[in-house]
């Protein structure tokens, strides 16, 4: 008696679900709805304080975007988010967001072009709308089976898991096409696996490598690097003086990097920041700025031996042309922590002498006065 009833219900549902399955019309409707929601979110983003306002940097990023996507670049709006850590995303209305923590981790223009091109492909190939449509179908089938079995939440969850594999396919497509575009735009395609390998190393060190592959929206890291390496090997390396665009990227970002590094350290993910700083210092061993921030990392972390290590790094940094004047303040603060009053007073006084308009002048003067009290 039970079986025919369930059978009839199932038949009705299959008919209803098939009637609602995604054709091109359905995809267009989904896309219009997602675009509307994204436009609203974009208005809120613009009104928020989360966007870095820097016209010169924006102009540079747009030039690189246009070089990688070609004439369709007018469809995109780029936002740099005031957030540490590596991430970038494409919205279904043509917004590409990239964190300043990502810009800090890129070594050259080729890597920037790779990230922007990858996100542009997600938008141009309508990945969000496709994923939504497929997720709806998968969850619909899951809910139907679940309802008939009396286990609807489990059925829906299985549908979501099935939809995630589509997401991995889309990442592969963006990786593959992104690599081709990178080479076509005249950049060295070998920068793609290099970037991912560097990010993977950072991720592994902070203990984030144990995620379950079937739950992840991106292909597993080793798989991804292997595919990118194989892909890059098949593509030509352009013959030019600077096929990675390293000099251009440095020129566009040099003045901003100090602030980005300071923000990165404020996030207090010291294990990840240490890998990042080691990587940057390997490429620029003479940089006073990087020596200073390596010292800052140790000063802020304040683990065993960190104070001494910070002082040694500050000492190496001082006197180099690109070292920030704050190296004197940090030297003084660490010396104070170690009880070296005379050295601390000396360093703090030097800081005030070299940065007469420092915003923390009153605070430092007070500290100096406190040291003179018995």
């Amino acid at each position: 008696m039970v079986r025919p009833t369930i059978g009839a219900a199932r038949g009705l549902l299959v008919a209803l679900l098939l009637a609602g399955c995604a054709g091109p019309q359905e995809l267009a409707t989904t896309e219009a709805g997602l675009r509307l929601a994204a436009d609203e979110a974009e208005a809120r983003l613009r009104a928020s304080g989360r966007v870095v306002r820097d016209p010169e940097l924006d102009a540079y990023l747009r030039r690189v975007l246009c070089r990688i996507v070609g004439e369709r670049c007018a469809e995109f709006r780029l936002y740099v988010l005031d957030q540490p850590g590596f991430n970038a995303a494409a919205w279904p209305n043509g917004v590409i967001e990239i964190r300043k923590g990502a810009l800090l981790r890129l070594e050259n223009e080729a890597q920037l072009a790779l990230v922007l091109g990858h996100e542009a492909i997600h938008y141009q190939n309508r990945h969000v709308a496709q994923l939504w449509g497929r997720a709806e179908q998968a969850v619909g089938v899951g809910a139907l089976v679940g309802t008939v079995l009396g286990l609807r939440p489990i059925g829906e969850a299985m549908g979501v898991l099935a939809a995630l594999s589509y997401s991995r396919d889309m990442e592969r497509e963006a990786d593959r096409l992104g690599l081709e575009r990178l080479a076509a735009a005249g950049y060295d395609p070998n920068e793609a696996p290099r970037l991912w390998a560097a990010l993977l190393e950072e991720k592994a060190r902070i203990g984030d490598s144990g995620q379950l592959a079937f739950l992840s929206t991106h292909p597993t890291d080793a798989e991804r690097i292997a595919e990118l390496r194989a892909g890059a090997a098949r593509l030509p390396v352009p013959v030019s003086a600077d096929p990675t665009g390293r000099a251009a990227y440095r020129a566009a970002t040099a003045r901003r990097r100090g602030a980005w590094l300071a923000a990165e350290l404020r996030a207090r993910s010291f294990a990840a920041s240490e890998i990042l700083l080691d990587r940057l210092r390997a490429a620029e061993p003479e940089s006073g700025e990087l020596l200073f921030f390596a010292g800052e990392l140790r000063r802020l972390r304040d683990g065993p031996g960190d104070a001494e290590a910070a002082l040694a790094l500050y000492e190496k940094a001082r006197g180099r042309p690109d070292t920030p004047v704050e190296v004197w303040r940090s030297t003084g603060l660490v010396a104070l922590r170690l009880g070296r009053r005379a050295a601390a007073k000396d360093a703090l006084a030097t800081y005030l002498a070299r940065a007469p308009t420092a915003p923390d002048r009153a605070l430092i003067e007070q500290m100096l006065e406190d040291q003179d009290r018995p």
Partner: protein
Amino acid sequence: MRFGLAILMLALAGCAMTEPKVAPEALATGSVGSGARIEEAKVLLLPPDLKVGEVGVAGQFKPRADWTEQAARNVMAALETKLAGRVRLERIDEASLDPAERADYERFATLARAVGQSIVAYGQLPTRRDRFDWSVGETGWPLARSRGARYALLVQMVDTHASGELIGLNVASFAVAALGLPAVIRTGAHYGRADLVDLETGRVVWHNFMLSQSPVADLRTLSGAETAVEALLRALPI
């Protein structure tokens, strides 16, 4: 997104409708602040913040651009009918704003929306229930000043309709429930919020909120939009 989820969870809890909230000093004497009578002051009507879409089988919200556009026309027409003759009304048309005005408008609308949603979320807390003293701050709003407006009326509505798949699944769920098995029924919901903000003091002088699971007002039709506006703006002091 998180807010949408909260609405859906509230929707599942049933129907809620609070009494409209009025700032006492705003209406006790029929006049506000510098003495201008409220019905004489000019009211700026911001474009209604609307979202119309489907609820899918798993309860997910799917915005529909075509329905939302239709609803925007209907709600605007219903608001103008409702307020016609009662108040000097000026509409803000986002498309006609220059970039500086637009940034200014977006800042104000975002802030006022956050305050209005906070009233919905926290207005019933024991420490807030008897104190209606919400404000968007005395930040001023150049656009409003240039248009000589004293008040801004903000309306938000979210209207969700069960998708075809969900209706089919609900039918099946009833059948399953009839067999004694556990089943889930999900439906659409209607959410509405309105705030009247005094642009001189920044105070929210009037607020109302409604939430309903029964399909009383389908914003896709003009008559549905009129019903929704009538219910939301009942007891509006202008």
